[in-house]
């Protein structure tokens, strides 16, 4: 991975440079300092660049004093992460924002609206133009609970954000039907604001802040290895994907490169995570369509896959596999070769039966359609985007070890409905099983990169840094940052980490795939669907509230 720093004037040259670097498998990450006055122009250029998509927007305090004492820090720095998929690289623009306003990014790149709301809540700066902003993270009572400071990353906004969707209108014969945040047993807290004229979904908006836990705020001051515990638990069903993205970011900052067998161990765990999530989505689709026999069949497959995880890695949900600099656990290859075909065969039998059941397919076909244009405009990722004809997959577009040598076949479809998403998940499951076989053949096991400065044969255990044992990473090391990514079962997971000169986190940004894809959910629900389609669409998206309300 190479990181380059340059000014805005160098933007065109850097974009052409990216393609050449990618040809050498350099996994380039380019960081460009863009003055706030030039930010709007830079965003227009990048949005028009072929194959570019706005992957994330986040802010941080202006200096090392940022964090829990962010109010005392300098200007807020706004960072935009661009996935340049055609060029196989990422580009980060950094802009120091003086004052409380910055150019309205969502006017150019609509995918940025959610983050504009989030940044206003967390840092008190807002886009120009005076557009209304939503409450997306901190609950209303967070600022008013006596003796309890809200988990805010920066300074508080002057005016609290609104509690309703900015563009939401109820008129004519339509009325609003509130649903949630407490839903049926075992389903995460989520509030739907359903606008309907009786049965058809006219509009839908979500409140996700009921579950906000301030994870990014809690990571400040920790070492990357300490933080990994919380990162894995940010979104339990995406533990491997999110932890891998975070680990890559920390490794970029620390200059570590995981050993090849450890990288393959991570990939085995990631593909197992994809498998069990797709099985769980299949069971949820059956439940939402009232097909209890199919649901039971898919849940048997799910349970068998979870038991394979436990036998292979020691944890049903694959916690504790990813480590900073490598993998803390390796797969039991014999167990996987013996048990995985049977568990996957169970899923195949359930899927084959479902694909031959017309009453099931009728509910999926033409339900929750998401167009390719909407998927691109909103920057969606993963199976949701691929089923709408946006075949982005970081394992292919931004390959790192071990996928650079074992590229998966990307499953895609164009219909954009629930059935297309279901078929994409099934195709991906088959590909994951093939990949796991190849990864095991190549050799996968635990291991960790030897950090710079550890004396061979010294008193520290192999692979342990002072940072890893709870102390500073390396006395006098420079403050650094890094970007990481992984293709989780829901799509591209991103993480960005900044470390101070003692190796502790000053700002960690976690962007699970759920954060991106929830913004496409309301579009899919509005496309001529009725109430009873909503659980089917939600199952086909298979997102988590925890991932977005982190």
């Amino acid at each position, binding site marked *: 991975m190479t990181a380059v720093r340059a000014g805005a004037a160098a933007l065109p040259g850097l974009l052409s440079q990216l393609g050449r670097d990618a040809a050498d498998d350099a996994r380039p990450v380019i960081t460009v300092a863009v003055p706030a006055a030039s930010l709007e122009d830079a965003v227009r250029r990048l949005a028009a660049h072929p194959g570019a998509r706005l992957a994330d927007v986040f802010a941080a305090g202006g200096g090392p004093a940022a964090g829990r004492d962010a109010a005392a820090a300098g200007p807020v720095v706004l960072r935009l992460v661009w996935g340049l998929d055609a060029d196989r690289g990422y580009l980060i623009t950094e802009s120091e924002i003086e004052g409380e306003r910055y150019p309205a990014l969502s006017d150019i790149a609509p995918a940025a609206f959610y983050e504009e709301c989030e940044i206003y809540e967390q840092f008190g700066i807002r886009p120009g133009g005076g557009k209304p902003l939503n409450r997306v993270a901190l609950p209303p009572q967070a600022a008013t609970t006596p003796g309890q400071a809200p988990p805010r990353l920066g300074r508080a906004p002057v005016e609290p954000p609104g509690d309703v969707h900015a563009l939401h209108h109820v008129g004519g014969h339509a009325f609003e039907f509130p649903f949630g945040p407490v839903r049926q047993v075992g389903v995460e807290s989520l509030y739907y604001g359903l606008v309907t004229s009786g049965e058809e979904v006219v509009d839908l908006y979500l409140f996700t802040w009921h579950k906000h836990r301030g994870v990014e705020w809690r990571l400040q001051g920790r070492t990357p290895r300490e933080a990994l515990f919380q990162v894995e638990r940010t979104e339990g069903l995406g533990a491997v994907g999110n932890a891998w993205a975070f680990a890559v970011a920390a490794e970029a900052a620390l200059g570590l490169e995981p050993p090849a067998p450890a990288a393959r161990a991570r990939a085995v765990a990631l593909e197992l995570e994809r498998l069990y999530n797709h099985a769980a989505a299949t069971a949820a689709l059956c439940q939402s369509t009232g097909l209890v026999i199919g649901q039971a069949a898919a849940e048997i497959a799910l349970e068998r896959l979870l038991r394979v995880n*436990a036998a292979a890695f*020691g944890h049903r949900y694959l916690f504790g596999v990813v480590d900073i600099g490598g993998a803390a656990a390796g797969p039991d290859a014999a167990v996987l070769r013996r048990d995985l075909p049977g568990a996957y065969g169970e899923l195949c039998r359930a899927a084959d039966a479902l694909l031959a059941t017309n009453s099931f397919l009728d509910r999926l076909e033409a339900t929750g359609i998401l167009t390719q244009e909407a998927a691109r405009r909103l920057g969606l990722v993963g199976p949701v985007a691929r089923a709408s004809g946006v075949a982005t997959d970081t394992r292919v577009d931004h390959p790192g070890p071990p996928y650079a040598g074992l590229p998966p076949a990307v499953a895609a479809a164009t219909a954009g409905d629930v059935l297309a998403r279901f078929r994409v998940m099934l195709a991906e499951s088959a590909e994951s099983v093939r990949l796991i076989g190849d990864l095991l053949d190549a050799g996968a096991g635990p291991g960790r990169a030897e950090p710079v400065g550890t004396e061979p044969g010294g008193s520290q255990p192999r692979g342990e840094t002072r940072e890893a044992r709870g*102390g500073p990473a390396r006395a006098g090391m420079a403050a650094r940052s890094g970007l990481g990514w992984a293709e989780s079962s829901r799509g591209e997971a991103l993480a960005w980490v900044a470390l101070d000169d003692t190796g502790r986190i000053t700002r960690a940004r976690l962007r699970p795939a759920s954060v991106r894809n929830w913004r496409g959910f309301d579009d899919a629900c509005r496309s001529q669907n009725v109430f009873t389609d909503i659980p089917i669409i939600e199952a086909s998206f298979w997102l988590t509230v925890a991932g977005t309300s982190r």
Partner: protein
Amino acid sequence: MTLWFLRGLRRGVVTTRYPARPDASAAALPTPPAFRPEALTRALADRLAAACPSRALARDGDALVFDVGACTACGRCLAEAPGAATSSGEFELAATLPAHLVKRIPLLAGGGAAAPATEGGSP
């Protein structure tokens, strides 16, 4: 449903035996630790408390206080003190009161003055 009702009447119970059979996969699950009091010192107890990310461990005088309900079975204490902590193999932790999940484990190895707070402690 009728069959279940008649079965309950005949046997005098309406529930099935638990577990119906041993679950072989349970052996592969992570479980909370079991501590050897004779291997625990105050210094080691402090290190264990610092290593625990979910704050399930704390030292109180000459006892290690272990809140099993807060334990996530992450295994960090096993790595920190392999001679003093082992995996308990116990994952069924139901209790009638939360207080029943808190254990006080005496530090029988005594010795070892309390260690200073490590830099890796949670903020």
